């Protein structure tokens, strides 16, 4: 029996197409949802099939985000692509100070169900301004749901859920994920937020990661398996809401935790997950938690510099060995 596989990019476009097809309130503001790389033509069929609902906006991240937020407040379900992750800083006010607070500030009488999407991450030669992952900062903006999918099935399911969500949602796609093919079910379906996926079972240590880092963790787990070390890879899939239970249950079985993320260390995603486990699952821990992240430096351009600061399977494997020997 042959397994069906699909690229992350193709599944993302399927989710948008199905979203447009099933809900007349959905529209897309963003001409390059898949960036400018080889996958970009996959979005052509969105424009062909829904010419009145797919817009090529001007280079105006704040304006585009605001159009999405305002339209959502007026009852629509826009999907706003902000392009490269760091461009979202231009739309910071619209995301954090308009969309995220609207429901709360009106005592629940109004909501802003806009979906923001961006391409994040160290992409290879992106240098400091085209390699960022703003979702750790946005995790500090209450009112925003955040999804960071890692596979074709997950990006499909999470985008469908984001488009249907009554809340403002951020979906981040790592630029290096677009071409990665993974298994997809015959019928892809929405995936509820707040439900982690155990991507690999293992008894010796828990590794928590999202987005591209899940693939690096799986590669590390494969290598460690040859050494007799069985790693459990937990992918929370959404940061908001966060499935604390699945993470804590896994740590209760393994007693050891490595958290992997490409965001900088301080105030980052790995730090938040580590703090949560330290606070709520301290009794399960047989060794100190280890975080594998980018150090607190901007991303450099030249490849050896970039590689030096970016988490990879070898660094993750080393961290697992460390957490297994520490007591």
């Amino acid at each position: 029996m042959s397994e069906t596989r699909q690229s992350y990019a193709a599944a993302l476009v399927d989710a948008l197409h199905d979203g447009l097809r099933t809900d007349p309130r959905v529209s897309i503001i963003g001409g390059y949802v898949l960036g400018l790389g080889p996958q970009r033509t996959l979005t052509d069929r969105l424009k062909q099939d829904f010419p009145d609902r797919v817009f090529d906006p001007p280079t105006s991240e704040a304006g585009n985000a605001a159009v999405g937020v305002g339209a959502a407040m007026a009852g629509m379900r826009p999907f706003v692509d902000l392009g490269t992750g760091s461009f979202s800083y231009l739309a910071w006010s619209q995301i954090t100070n308009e969309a995220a607070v609207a429901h709360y500030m009106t005592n629940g009488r109004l909501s802003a169900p806009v979906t923001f999407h961006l391409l994040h991450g160290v992409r290879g030669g992106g240098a400091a301004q085209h390699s960022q992952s703003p979702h750790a900062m946005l995790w500090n903006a209450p009112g925003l749901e955040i999804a960071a999918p890692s596979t074709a099935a997950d990006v499909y399911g999470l985008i469908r859920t984001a488009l249907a969500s009554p809340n403002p949602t951020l979906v981040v796609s790592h630029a290096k994920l677009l071409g990665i093919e993974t298994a997809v079910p015959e019928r892809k379906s929405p995936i509820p937020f707040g439900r982690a996926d155990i991507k690999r079972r293992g008894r010796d240590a828990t590794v928590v990661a999202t987005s591209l880092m899940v693939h690096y963790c799986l590669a590390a787990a494969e290598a460690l398996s040859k050494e007799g070390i069985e790693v459990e890879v937990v992918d929370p899939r959404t940061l908001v809401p966060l499935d604390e239970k699945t993470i804590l249950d896994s740590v209760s079985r393994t007693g050891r935790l490595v958290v992997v993320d490409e965001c900088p260390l301080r105030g980052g995603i790995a730090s938040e997950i580590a703090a949560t486990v330290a606070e709520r699952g301290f009794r399960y821990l047989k060794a100190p938690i280890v975080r594998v992240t980018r150090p607190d430096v901007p991303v450099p351009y030249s490849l050896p510099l970039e590689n030096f600061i970016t988490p990879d399977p070898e660094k993750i494997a080393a961290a697992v060995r460390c957490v297994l020997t520490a007591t």
Partner: protein
Amino acid sequence: MTEGLADTLRWQCLEKMLLIRRFEETVVKLAGDGHFRGHYHLYIGQEGTGVPAITALAAKDHLATTHRNHGHILARGADPGAGLAEILGRATGLNGGRGGTIHLCEPTLGFLSTSGVVGGCISLAVGGGYACAQRRDGSVTMALFGDGALEEGVSFEALNIASLWHLPVIFLCENNSAGAMGMAKGGYPTLVHASTDLLLIPKSLGISSVRVDGVDVAAVHAAATQAIARCRSGQGPVFIEAMTPRWAGSNPLWPELATGITDLRMATGESGTDGPHKQWYENFDPVLRLARELAKGGAESVRRISALDEAARKRIADAADFALASPLPAPETALNHVFAQETPA
């Protein structure tokens, strides 16, 4: 017939303008008596713009307003009791005490979230217009904002998008810098813009633009009506600059009733207008100006003005009683409504 229509409209406007004026005067009193803290912004002096413009909208239309929202919310028909309760941070307030004076919002009347970020309202309104265009139901969105909003970068982006996509948005700029004291004597900051003709900004983007006297109710209503019709017919956005001379009480952060409690006898000739604010009373106060026009109708009109004011005062007094008697929110409810429906962890 036209006269009759305009007359009906003028009386309708006066009623709402009086309600707003008495509301704002009460806000100053409540602040002075220590019933709420924090800075606030009043709509006194701009009633002649917001009221006729909002009256020209239909029920299906959307609006976006700013930190200076009290007049807009009331002009659209929001409950003044719930408005004052919100300003006092009470559970019965429009926003349940989560918004305060800067964020008064009545979603059931078509308001988008009231942004206190300068320029935020312009950009959200373009989103409202985008929604109207997607729905193809002939609805429009009106943004009501001050001249300072045009100093923000997002305003330029939003105007550009509205023009590019022919969105049905009426940008109503209430230019209240006219006659402002500027930064002198610690005065309220006025427009800091390289352009001395703000209409050049929308015009440069191909947006139909017009300037009106913001104290002239009939002129504002005519401009708004024309703009709304143009938007409904799919011809794209319209920019209106309404000149609303700055009220002397508009101090930085904490206004004061510099021109006193509005005395309608100044409009009916029963009271003089002498003193330092003579110009204001005679030319720029939109409430007095409209009342003065209507009072020309004779004794019956004067009685009607007096009755409308009496009713407005009563309604606002009741609203203040309601607000003051309303409970504060239960502290633990501060955790509610972060998310709609299912609350994520």
